[in-house]
């Protein structure tokens, strides 16, 4: 039996995008019935909460939205959709004031009481507003409190599984969800829907996102026939913790500031190696450091567990323990001494720049469906600047909330769901229960290694072709793997099965898009095509799935609607740090 439910606006996800959308929709029209459905608990699942860095916004004298824009475009290697990037940098100014004055966020201050904005790699101005190194918790807690206080329905531990189109093909009619508590299905009909479930490259052996992330939103978008763009662009963060097999902590981030403040990366022989790769050493950008660490390990110069060491002790253990309190405690809880010893690290898959193609008002090609945050693609291009992630989700979440309310004001109404699609999607989800139980662990472990080894930090045609063949094989093994039907109530193993199905599908999309892009830009590096290619003729990749499940890759020219390669809106070099502090002298 399927429970049914009607609401005006359904929001999938409760990160920065989902929560801001709900608040904005309610502000636009308090009479609207707004429902948030989320895989975990409101405000406690997903990745906005995990943001350590901060929120990029041009506020200070000497900075400008043009400067923030140019840093974003140059950092994204001219691949961003310029109107979206412009909407981001403009919207960030409004959003930070709302977070401060309407949500009550505590952002760190300078001694004179003004907002403190810190430096972040790849930016020509210190513009990252933050709350220590736990900015995400602050933003999400304050947003969630405002959502709890309002008449907004919560469907917690409700996993979205499919967008259900209208019977007459006029747009989206409903979303099919699984109520994880009792294991039954719920069909929520809505006049407009926001997808804000987040991305998260959790199909890589080492990854940073929240453990509940499995690219559900992108997979749902593919099944609904939507076009995804820039899917080859997976950002790797250089320093994830290596804690050993079967540890959930492995892959989680040790923050960028450790290197920024003078931390060393040491290979297995205890030698610094970053200056062999780049004149900025450990302070080079994420992509460069990630690739260098990967090469160092691949050349056999890694640590016993196949990583490198990060070392802070030369800066004074007491000072490190004070300045990086959170990181030091996190390491100590895993049994590592960050302040005084070495901690093994490895690059880790962090963020997906790609996602569902969308417009500046967050509309998608499916009428009634809006998208915001990491599920969307095009804002960041080939690389996301640290601090542009939470700005992106909160800016576009608010935009979507307003746009959805407006669409309803202009007459968007409930549509009749296509019952055939509902039936088909329910059958897809229940399929494993009618099959012989299989070993999901083997499939998951194989997927993690396959993506890491063949579609990761360094790619080439041979690796990617092998990756796609391997993914086809894993897809078939997954489709045959069954589950014991003991209970469907809070059955995490059923959700693991559903997670894997989505992760394998989106992995295919990443590998295929990576094969299609025959150049190296930002996060995407092809050792067989190491050059960036001509900027003037930059194209972005697109990918969509046919009803028969075939993935079709294409490409389109980037429209330089605001600035062309070679031109600039600012004085000075975009993306270059305001002034490079000299590398600190070693204590010994």
């Amino acid at each position: 039996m399927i429970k049914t439910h009607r609401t005006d606006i359904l929001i999938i996800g409760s990160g920065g995008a989902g929560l801001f959308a709900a608040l904005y929709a309610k502000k636009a029209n308090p009479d609207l019935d707004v429902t948030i459905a989320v895989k975990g608990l409101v405000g406690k699942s997903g990745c906005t909460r995990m943001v350590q860095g901060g929120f990029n916004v041009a506020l200070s004298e000497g900075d400008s939205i043009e400067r923030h824009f140019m840093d974003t475009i140059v950092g994204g290697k001219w691949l961003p959709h310029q109107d979206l990037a412009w909407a981001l940098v403009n919207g960030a100014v409004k959003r930070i004031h709302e977070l401060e004055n309407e949500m009550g966020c505590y952002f760190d201050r300078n001694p004179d009481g003004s907002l403190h904005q810190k430096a972040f790699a790849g930016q020509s101005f210190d513009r990252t507003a933050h709350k220590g190194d736990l900015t995400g918790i602050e933003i999400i807690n304050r947003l969630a409190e405002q959502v709890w206080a309002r008449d907004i329905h919560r469907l917690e531990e409700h996993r979205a599984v499919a967008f259900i189109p209208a019977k007459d093909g006029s747009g989206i009619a409903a979303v099919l969800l699984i109520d994880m508590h009792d294991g039954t299905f719920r069909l929520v009909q809505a006049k407009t829907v926001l997808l804000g479930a987040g991305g998260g490259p959790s199909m890589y052996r080492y990854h940073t996102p929240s453990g509940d992330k499995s690219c559900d939103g992108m997979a749902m978008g593919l099944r609904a026939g939507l076009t995804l763009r820039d899917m080859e662009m997976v950002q790797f963060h250089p320093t994830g913790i290596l804690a050993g097999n079967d540890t959930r902590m492995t892959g989680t981030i040790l923050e960028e500031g450790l290197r920024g403040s003078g931390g060393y990366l040491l290979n297995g022989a205890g030698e610094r190696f970053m200056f062999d790769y780049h004149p900025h050493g450990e302070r080079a950008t994420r992509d460069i450091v990630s690739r260098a660490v990967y090469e160092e390990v691949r050349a056999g110069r890694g640590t016993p567990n196949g990583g490198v060491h990060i070392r802070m002790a030369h800066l004074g253990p007491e000072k490190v323990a004070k300045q990086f309190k959170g990181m030091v405690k996190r390491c100590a809880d895993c049994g590592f001494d960050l302040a005084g010893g070495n901690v093994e690290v490895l690059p880790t898959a962090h963020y997906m720049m790609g996602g569902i193609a969308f417009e500046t008002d967050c509309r998608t090609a499916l009428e009634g469906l809006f998208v915001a945050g990491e599920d969307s693609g095009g804002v960041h291009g080939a690389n996301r600047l640290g601090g542009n992630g939470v700005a992106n989700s909160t800016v576009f979440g608010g935009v979507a909330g307003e746009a959805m309310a407006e669409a309803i004001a202009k007459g968007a109404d409930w549509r009749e769901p296509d019952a055939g699609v509902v039936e088909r999607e329910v059958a897809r989800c229940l399929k494993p229960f009618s099959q012989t139980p299989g070993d999901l662990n083997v499939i998951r472990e194989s997927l993690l290694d396959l993506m890491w080894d063949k579609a990761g930090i360094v790619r080439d045609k041979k690796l990617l072709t092998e990756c796609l063949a391997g993914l086809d094989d894993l897809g078939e093994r997954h489709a045959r793997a069954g589950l014991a039907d003991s209970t469907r109530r809070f059955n995490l193993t059923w959700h693991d099965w559903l997670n894997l199905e989505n992760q394998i599908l989106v992995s295919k999309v990443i590998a295929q898009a990576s094969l299609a892009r025959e150049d190296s830009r930002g996060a995407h590096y092809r050792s067989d095509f190491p050059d960036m290619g001509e900027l003037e003729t930059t194209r972005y990749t697109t990918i969509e799935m046919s009803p028969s499940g075939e993935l079709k890759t294409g490409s389109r020219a980037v429209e330089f609607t605001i600035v062309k390669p070679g031109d600039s809106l600012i004085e000075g070099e975009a993306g270059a740090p305001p002034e490079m502090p000299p590398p600190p002298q070693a204590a010994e």
Partner: protein
Amino acid sequence: MSPPERVLKVDIWRGGESGRTQRFEVPERENQTVLDVVTYIQRHLDAALAYRFACRVGVCGSCAMTVNGRPRWTCRTHVSRVVRRGKLSLAPLANLPVIRDLVTDMTPFFEKWQAARGRFVPGDGPRDEMAAVSPGEKHRIAASDAIECINCGVCHAACDLVSWREDYLGPAALNRAWAAWNDVRDGDRNGILRAVVSGGGCHNCHTHQSCAEHCPVSLNPTFSIAGLKRETLKAKLRGELK
């Protein structure tokens, strides 16, 4: 021949409000958190085991459980710190309804958070500026000391008053109220005092300090509650509170 694998004996609560414990044997690893142990059981020994987690790194506060009788965050609790004679005993958090196995319903916890006015109410300051707030100012220091709560529910589970008095707002909610009251930008600070002075409010706290002792991020809700007690009394003397 490799040395024989060491094994942890893990007793886990199975069922809802009523149920039983079940014993599992899990290979011991050099690096292993309690969440890793639970994950191993679900992945390899009993696919139906229910537990909750998300961020896996001590940020979301989803995975708290009772570990050998004490409430703890499990993603950041190394087994070596809590194991006793090779044994672990795991149960859902106390003082919250049980959904299944290790999962509790946190709704009452967040309802109390709201009842304590645990949220910001905008004041009449300009909305398009960042208010000048000195980091060394007394109220800002008090608020900063209390604000980094991850709402994991550990203090709520550790508090004996929460277990005795159903309407007691509890340490997490009151701690949030204290941070809110110290926010000079807030538009209704007396409203916070009204919210925390009534029946199940701050004056119930008997300063047992369990909350501070168990808080995984080293906050001190008892101290915050003492602040609320002081300020509500002062407001009463001034005639601002009934």
